[in-house]
């Protein structure tokens, strides 16, 4: 009984790490992705090309390779990051690349006439983005973004492979002690599913909330 209790506590801490990794990655990649997404849509050509190159390269590499590269590869250049930071950074890079593309798609889907009408009443670039483009792009951004958030939560399980004791690694370690794999894997799957199902439900609610805007 005490065994189960300590196992549960162990899993609970793992879940906390999973949530911590996910939240960090989601916040970092949202800020970086939106910023770079705006630049890639409206910025000068050299910046656009550089960001495109970044996002194409990152999206063409498996997340696991990215994590190993940051954790095992970067130390060769003298940059030593611990496993937690490496894992978060690799996941954030990956997610940033996704969000750049989502943001670019959402921004470009807004008709050029909206920008012209906003210019015509004298709004500056920042005002046009803030009051005209972003509110319209938001509803096109949200569903694919929440999709990418669920990818982050699922992808966070990969941090276990560099020894970060997240939910996944906690489950494996408990299995290693107790030799009861199936119920524990099922429990893990259920937890991941609950998180992501909640997120995708939220996405549907938000979609409905913004459905009234039509062009």
């Amino acid at each position, binding site marked *: 009984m005490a065994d189960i209790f300590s196992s549960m506590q162990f899993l609970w801490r793992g879940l906390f790490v999973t949530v911590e990794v996910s939240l960090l990655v989601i916040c970092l990649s949202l800020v970086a992705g939106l910023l770079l997404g705006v630049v890639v849509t409206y910025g000068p050509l050299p910046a656009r090309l550089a960001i495109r190159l970044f996002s194409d390269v990152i999206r063409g590499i498996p997340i696991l390779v990215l994590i190993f590269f940051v954790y095992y590869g970067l130390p060769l250049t003298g940059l030593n990051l611990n496993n937690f930071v490496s894992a978060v950074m690799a996941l954030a890079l990956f997610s940033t690349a996704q969000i750049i593309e989502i943001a670019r798609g959402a921004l470009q889907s807004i*008709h050029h*006439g*909206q920008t*012209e*009408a*906003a*210019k*015509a*009443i*004298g*709004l*500056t*670039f920042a*005002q046009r983005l803030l*009051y*005209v483009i972003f*509110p*319209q792009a938001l509803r096109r951004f949200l569903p694919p973004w929440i999709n990418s958030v669920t990818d982050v939560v699922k992808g966070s399980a990969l941090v276990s492979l560099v020894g970060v004791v997240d939910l996944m690694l906690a489950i494996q370690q408990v299995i290693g002690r107790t030799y009861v794999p199936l119920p524990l894997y099922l429990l893990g799957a259920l937890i991941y599913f609950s998180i992501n199902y909640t997120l995708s439900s939220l996405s549907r609610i938000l979609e409905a909330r913004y459905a*009234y*805007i*039509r*062009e």
Partner: protein
Amino acid sequence: MPISASNATSAPAHEPGQPVVRIRGLKKSFGQIVVLDGINLDVHRGEVVTIIGPSGGGKTTLLRCINVLEIYDEGSIQIDGVEVGFTDSSGARRKRTESDLAHHRAETGMVFQLFYLFPHLTAAENVMLGLRKVRGFGKAEARAIAERWLDRVGLAAKADSLPSQLSGGQQQRVGIARAVAMEPKVLLLDEITSALDPELVGEVLSVVRKLAEEGMTMMVVTHEMAFAREVSSRVVFIDAGRIVAEGRPEDVFQKQSNERLRSFLARVS
């Protein structure tokens, strides 16, 4: 067609004093294609200048250059004596900064063929946005101004409707209210009835007619020849990037002095 009352009060073609819009030697190309090829034109306060001509002749580009949605290549456009697209310092022409351009665009209202209302904002909010963020009015003040203008275009009851809930004609009237609420020095109308069902054209034109009678300075690109004849103080015929004929509407439409003008009018009427 008789000359309407609005013509009697409008300015003659060569009014003394500084024009609101002064265009000299204006040139604009898109790649190899020369769209504007040396336009000279003055628009005085209270004048309604209608620009007619075949598609691709440069009419719309001319309007877009005036509020700098397009940057012109050569020549000069001045609004109340101020060059709109460039600054001149010791002979070097420099494109104006973004905030300069924004400031300038607020002085030149533009109404678009396809309305381009902001779909996420109500009719009143569409009108209020520029008033609040550019003119700096508070919310209540901006709302009052917006309601006054919506009332004048006959849409007082639709202030809280979203564009998607309005007909094309109603949307375009909101578009006009959004532009004139900023009290621009000149109002630019770019084929504002071309995208409307025929039965909705009249309600939009009557709003423009009213503005003309109240002395709003306007430049109107249109294919509605009867309307052009009725409201214009002056008609300008542009073909292949040049002003080919210009004059009082009765002269332009009746004398048809120019061969290209004659064939154009024969096609559209």
